[in-house]
């Protein structure tokens, strides 16, 4: 069976004053129906742009380069006209964003905004859309949903607003949900609730999820597969259990080591040394080599391809070839 979503060699460029920027530079992955794929990486590695590209929402003057391919259920998303695109946005792929405080329009009520999304894809009356909005608020676990219908976004907390965003994304029963750091802006306790809600909705609806995060800690026990992104590329990809059992790329190991863990009374936190390079000037060879604790001489000159390191487990690192991973 073909995957629901296939991304092949996705490249996004921006013209800048310092030359062309390549924030997403050859990303390939696929998501099966009902699967939860986690896309993990430090801030600035190109996660959000990748997710925006799936809906063709890369902000101008950014451009998806020819040669890139995005297929939804076999349909070439990059070849679609505006109306066909609209039938994917929100209808087949829903999206929620990092900051629920700014993702809702401040001048419209909750019912207005959910109803609008319902009516964007279905020919139903305003009254029916409102009834549907109420159902959705119930489904995302908002207390007193009837009272919340006519409330404005600023009258709700961040967690409640994120639930509303989820309700909006679910309005047209999409086959896939993109969640771009959906809990980063929220309190820790609220984070857990939102993640639980997403887990539940995914199970109930059999919806595929692309969960974008910089926090490997929320991935374990939740994602089916993990793709680790660094400097505009995927550097490692494996089933979640496999990745946590045998993290292979030095960057992944670094990320795992920097997940805050409470060991007895001591909190260990080992951030990866150095910073992400700028997308206008990626390092030659392996892009991680300047920060890599295990770099070989050839890493500075030769760019490693994706190499197998196990069952459906691949990474972009010469260590795979050396068999030392």
């Amino acid at each position, binding site marked *: 069976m073909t995957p629901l979503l296939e991304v092949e060699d996705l490249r996004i460029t921006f013209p800048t004053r310092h030359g062309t920027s390549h924030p997403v530079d050859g990303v390939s992955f696929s998501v099966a129906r009902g699967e939860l794929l986690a896309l993990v990486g430090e801030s600035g590695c190109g996660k959000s742009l990748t997710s925006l590209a799936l809906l063709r929402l890369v*902000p101008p003057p950014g451009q998806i380069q020819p040669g890139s391919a995005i297929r939804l259920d076999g349909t070439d998303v990059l070849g679609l006209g505006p109306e066909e695109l*609209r*039938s994917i*946005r929100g209808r087949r792929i829903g999206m929620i*964003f990092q900051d629920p405080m700014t*993702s809702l329009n*401040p*001048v419209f009520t909750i019912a207005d905004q959910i109803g609008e999304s319902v009516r964007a894809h279905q020919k139903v009356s305003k009254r029916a859309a409102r009834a549907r909005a109420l159902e959705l608020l119930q489904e995302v676990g908002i207390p007193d949903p009837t009272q919340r219908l006519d409330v404005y976004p*600023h009258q709700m907390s961040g967690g409640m607003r994120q639930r509303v965003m989820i309700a909006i994304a679910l309005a047209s029963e999409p086959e896939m949900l993109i969640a771009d750091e959906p809990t980063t802006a929220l309190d820790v306790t609220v984070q857990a609730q939102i993640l639980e809600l997403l887990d539940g909705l995914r199970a109930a609806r059999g919806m595929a999820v692309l969960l974008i995060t910089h926090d490997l800690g929320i991935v374990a026990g939740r994602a089916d597969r993990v793709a680790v992104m660094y400097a505009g590329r995927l550097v490692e990809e494996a089933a979640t259990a496999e990745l946590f059992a045998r993290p292979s790329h030095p960057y992944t190991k670094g990320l795992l080591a920097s997940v805050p863990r409470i060991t007895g009374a001591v909190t260990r936190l080992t951030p990866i040394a150095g910073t992400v390079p700028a997308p206008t000037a990626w390092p030659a060879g392996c892009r991680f080599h300047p920060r890599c604790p295990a770099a070989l001489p050839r890493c500075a000159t030769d760019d490693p391809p994706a190499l197998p390191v196990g069952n459906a487990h691949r990474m972009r690192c010469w260590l795979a070839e050396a068999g030392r991973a």
Partner: protein
Amino acid sequence: MTRWLVRRTLQAVVTFVVVTVLLFVLMRLTPGDPLERLAGDRQMSAEAVAALRHKFGIDQPITTQFTSFVAGALAGDLGVSIEHYPTKVSTLVLSRLPASLLLGGTVLLLTFGIGIALGVFQAVKRRSRADRWLTRASLTLYAMPSFWLGLVLAWFFGIRLQLLPVAQMHDPLLDPDASWLVRTGDVLRHLILPAVTLTAVSLAAVMRYQRTALLEVLRLDFVLAARARGIPERQVLWRHAWRNALFPVVGLLGLWLPMLVSGSVFVEQVFNWPGLGSLAADAVGARDYPVILGTAMLVSAQVLLGGLLADLAYYALDPRVRQA
């Protein structure tokens, strides 16, 4: 809401009183008085002038003059014009009001209608060739003095091409029995040049306000979120983005509302438009204190009303203000 409105209205009333007192005092501090000129022009005897001074009360101490002015004003009487004696100030002002309202209303409608449309267009096509040319063209017009542009337009369309009337609001030779339609058409023809002049010089401000405000909103997350859920682009632009980019423009409208009444002194003079602007200008020239004071009070009331209306509009448009 009611408490807020009451407080806001009281504030406006107090400001109005203070402004009126200031107007009264400032006017008396400027050199010259209404009868000096009369005396010079018509070679009246000193006794006759003194008698006139006494008649108009200008020989009284300023405090006495002020109390009698306030007493009159409270009774709705703003006094009589000295220049157009014995016409009442209120009669003069009311006779000029319709012309001012017509010109000011037309200009506000055109300026905001066209300015908003062009500003939105520029924001959507930001950094395009059309955007840049519209900016240049509107700023060029903005930089022109209104009376100068008025004179140029009057010369070109009125004198060279003989297309449009350049003065007054009615054709004096028009058959007095002409139909309603003909008379309206005549007024509209007279309206074109002053209205176009004033619109042209003020358009750039509205365009810039609208362009900047919309560009700021278009960058916000909720616009991206609206697109991401498949809302049609037209709806994203007008319902989501523009609704939120309206606030600065509403503020500007409040600020400019006095234009409805005062028009532009210069443009009314150039086109001999029988409005309040030219009335005020003539009154200043003649030191016609009661008329100056009457028109100035009307304008300051308009300024305050404009601010009040803008606040009310914010209140209606923005739920965050409503809750605050």
